[in-house]
């Protein structure tokens, strides 16, 4: 699977918008389903390559859980922690798939981050002119 260059550029723009528009977001990493980072932005030190690999594993396991439980397509996985949360959302854009990973600190509002991440997914899935 080859990721179109235009989609990589769009991913970089969308990642930046999520980081800028939601308070408390620490990093946004957009990756291929097999764990290669294609875009990332961060407010603190993170390892995008590592996060990309983990996000792809989480997304794949989430998809299997959804399937086994008969819950339809997995749209978002939330990892809630003492000091914040992580969101992992799959993206399906034509024949290309991606994974969006958002890591947020405790001052972020979960619903706001989920809403904005879903908007990011829709933007990446939207057909381009």
């Amino acid at each position, binding site marked *: *699977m*080859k*990721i179109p260059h235009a989609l990589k550029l769009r991913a970089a723009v969308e990642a930046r918008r999520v980081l800028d528009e939601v308070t408390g977001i620490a990093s946004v990493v957009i990756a*291929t*389903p*097999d*764990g*290669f980072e294609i875009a990332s932005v961060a407010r603190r030190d993170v390892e995008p*390559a*590592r996060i990309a*690999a*983990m996000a*792809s*594993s*989480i997304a*794949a*396991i989430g*998809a*299997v859980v959804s399937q*086994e439980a008969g819950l339809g397509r997995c749209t978002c996985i939330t990892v809630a922690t003492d000091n914040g949360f992580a969101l992992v959302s799959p993206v399906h854009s034509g024949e290309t*798939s991606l994974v969006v990973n958002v890591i947020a600190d405790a001052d972020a509002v979960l619903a706001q981050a989920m809403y904005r991440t879903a908007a990011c997914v829709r933007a990446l899935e939207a057909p381009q002119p």
Partner: protein
Amino acid sequence: MRDFKLVFTGPMGVGKTTAIAAISETAPIATEVANADTSVAKATTTVGLDFGQVTLDNGDRLRLYGTPGQSRFDFMWKILVRDALGLAILLDNSRPDPLADLAQYLDGFAGALERMPCAVGVSRLPSHPTPTLDDYAQALAARGLVLPLLAVDPRRKDDVVALIETLLMQIEVLDEEAAP
């Protein structure tokens, strides 16, 4: 009835998913996605885990887990090997440097190998006869390890069963040694 958790690891494309699917009595769980790594001619790759189950004649149950092959997923290696009773390393003799592959997985699972049995299965030996099983044995010996080495075809149920039986025999020996 006992429950055994066994883990299959090895390079991408060696046949871990195939091996588990070959013997699982339930529909195997696989987390394969499209492969974006153009250096490897493979359409899909495991990024989470494989899972299958086998019930032995004596009622013992095997839970088989497969790891992703690429080292960027080594966090999954650590998760999956936790509480496992045995580790099978699958290697592909047609890859550029199978002995380096062996070293990578011995390093990646070094902590686990201190306490759990391990067996090494080497595929494609008929078409790619070197390195030989003796070469692998020497590489293991250089690290102070003596592990069972088998020629396997991950597509063949009998070969996968032989690899698992080798692990189970080692587990039984350890159990007997630990028994008072």
